[in-house]
């Protein structure tokens, strides 16, 4: 099988690229070329992997040629390959956007020579987490992407970013330590960390032990995915980073957590779905998150809260533990990665064009820059779940699965999902009305005590509106189009999501292709 030999490349290529880019730190042009080539290749490889995983079943590589249960395995099944493709596409678009920003800012080695290598390491870490076939490799993937994200979060080391970065780093470190504890306990209980082997051995454990392991892993991944009681770190830390960094964080990092939840819940603990617990967590995540978004008057913070809120939809799908629910969750992850990233990129454009992201200071952007208006309006309506868009289709899929579950709590969640969708629409419509639709404010002062500008941005805020560079608009427009295209290809996409969910529920395709000789 030739496609299987491609499986390690989405991890290896960006890592190699990172090394080369670091060595080329003095030559900004070469550095950019290396990054673009490495990430474009990742997109192409991820597409090939998805096609072959969909037609031939999971692709497995045992690194280093060790005999089967001993080595490190990388597995690309339908779910992994789909996540890989979406994440690689989004990462590439954000990279092009940040290149545009760097060129527009006129500094030749912008943002910093460290930006490209770190960004590539981040994408390698994300790919490794998606492909990992054992718990410890999943941990390493998380650590790689987190270490890169610490650097990107605190880029340029301004006071505001150090402040937000402190919380982020400490919270992430604690979740990593929790993950390590879980791995140690899993190993002590079963003698393996390979996911396929664990799927057999965990079932033999006493219920209490297995429940403890499950809850530990669930807590770990919930911190990373920002599920409600563990989500407070996110809205505080994300908005302070540079716009492209926030965009890629918002799109990818929490979804890696969601992916890990889906993987462990379906593969390792299929007999204990913890439906009630997860449903309550999903409901609270949706409602608390969106109420936070409604209260915000700053676009980036508002978007961060909608990010938390919409994680609830995915957890809802996982909690149902039905094929329809999982398929809905997978589709929603794909939709949300694309849309949330797009919106953060647009927020970066708004900041550039309007000089601020505070709704109290913006106004009249729709007349000042109609194209920016379109770029904001389409994904915003998509996020709010207006019918032709993928946001509506994803929510409809999840709500149908919820109704099909036919439990009182599931109906409550369906209601909660509808309310959250409406409130999301309210929040983005408020942003649209204030920033784009109303007349440009001559001099709108922020109420005393709530003044908070983008004082951390280096350089003076542009008092006169600056034109938007085409190199930043083009990738944003590209992602908006991808978001719209998601509703065009919704049929095939739901097909893949359905088959991926069926595989996850079945478990045997994954286990048998990782360990063709049977579970030892």
């Amino acid at each position, binding site marked *: 099988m030739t496609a299987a030999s491609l499986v390690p490349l989405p991890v290896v290529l960006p890592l190699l690229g990172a090394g080369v880019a670091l060595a080329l730190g003095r030559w900004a042009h070469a550095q950019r070329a290396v990054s673009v080539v490495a990430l474009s290749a990742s997109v192409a490889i991820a597409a090939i992997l998805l096609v072959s995983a969909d037609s031939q079943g999971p692709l497995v590589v045992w690194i280093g040629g060790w005999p089967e249960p001993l080595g490190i395995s990388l597995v690309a099944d339908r779910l992994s390959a789909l996540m890989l493709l979406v994440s690689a596409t989004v990462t590439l678009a954000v990279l092009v956007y940040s290149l545009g920003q760097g060129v527009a800012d006129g500094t030749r080695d912008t943002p910093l020579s460290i930006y490209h290598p770190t960004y590539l390491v981040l994408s390698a870490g994300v790919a490794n987490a998606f492909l990992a076939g054992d718990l*410890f490799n999943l941990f390493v993937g998380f650590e790689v992407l987190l270490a890169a994200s610490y650097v990107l979060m605190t880029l340029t080391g301004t006071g505001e970013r150090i402040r937000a970065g*402190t919380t982020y780093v400490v919270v992430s470190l604690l979740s990593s330590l929790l993950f390590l504890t879980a791995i140690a306990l899993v190993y002590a209980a079963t003698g393996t960390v390979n996911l396929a082997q664990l799927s057999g051995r965990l079932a033999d454990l006493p219920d209490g032990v297995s429940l403890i392991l499950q809850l530990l892993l669930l807590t770990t991944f919930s911190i990373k995915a920002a599920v409600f009681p563990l989500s407070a770190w996110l809205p505080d830390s994300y908005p302070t980073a540079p716009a492209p960094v926030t965009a890629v964080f918002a799109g990818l990092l929490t979804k890696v957590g969601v992916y890990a939840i889906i993987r462990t819940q379906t593969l390792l603990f299929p007999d204990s779905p913890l439906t009630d617990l997860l449903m309550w967590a999903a409901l609270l995540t949706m409602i608390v998150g969106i109420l936070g978004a409604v209260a915000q008057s700053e676009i980036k913070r508002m978007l961060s809260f909608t990010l938390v809120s919409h994680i609830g939809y995915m957890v809802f799908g996982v909690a149902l533990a039905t094929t329809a629910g999982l398929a809905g969750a997978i589709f929603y992850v794909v939709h949300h990665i694309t849309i949330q990233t797009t919106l953060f990129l647009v927020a970066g454009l708004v900041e550039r064009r309007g000089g601020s992201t505070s709704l109290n200071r913006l106004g009249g952007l729709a007349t000042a820059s109609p194209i920016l208006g379109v770029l904001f309006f389409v994904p915003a309506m998509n996020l709010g779940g207006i019918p032709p868009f993928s946001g509506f289709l994803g929510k409809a899929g999840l709500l149908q699965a919820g109704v099909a579950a036919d439990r009182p709590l599931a109906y409550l969640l369906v209601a909660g999902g509808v309310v959250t969708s409406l409130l999301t629409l309210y929040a983005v419509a408020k942003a649209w009305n204030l920033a784009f639709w109303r007349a440009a404010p001559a001099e709108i002062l922020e109420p005393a005590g709530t003044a908070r500008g983008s004082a951390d941005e280096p350089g003076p805020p542009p008092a006169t509106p600056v034109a938007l560079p085409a190199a930043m608009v083009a990738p944003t427009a590209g992602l908006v189009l991808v978001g719209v295209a998601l509703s065009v290809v919704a049929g095939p996409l739901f097909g893949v999501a359905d088959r991926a969910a069926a595989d996850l529920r079945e478990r045997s395709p994954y286990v048998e292709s990782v360990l063709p000789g049977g579970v030892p």
Partner: protein
Amino acid sequence: MTANLALVLTASVLVAAGVYLVLERSLTRVLIGIILISNGVNIAFLVAGGPAGGAPIVGVTEPARMSDSLPQAMVLTAIVITLGITAFLLAMAYRSWQLTGHDEVQDDVEDAAIRRLAVADAESRSYDDGDDDERAPMPEARP
């Protein structure tokens, strides 16, 4: 599997001390706490590896008496990762000290804004019930 009680106790003491330090406000203490916890977790890995045995090298030790090398490999990876992150956190603590003169973890911007609003409200006339002695001024938000 028999667990080594001394190792379990050491791990739990390290984690307990670490949790106490992580709850502190100074980033340096938080960092030391994280180092302690991670050492505790690393020792937990040794417990998970089962009873101690000979060096796991073919020809030196019989296979039956070898200690389990896999958890040790994992611990090594974890130690390396913790080392790197520790260096990064130290740099952040130093940068924070450069910028603000201390390395205390600062409040969320939102919290500070809400607190400012609360302070403003406490001094507004609508709340004045004429009994000023009972209302101690709220602490100012940290700059």
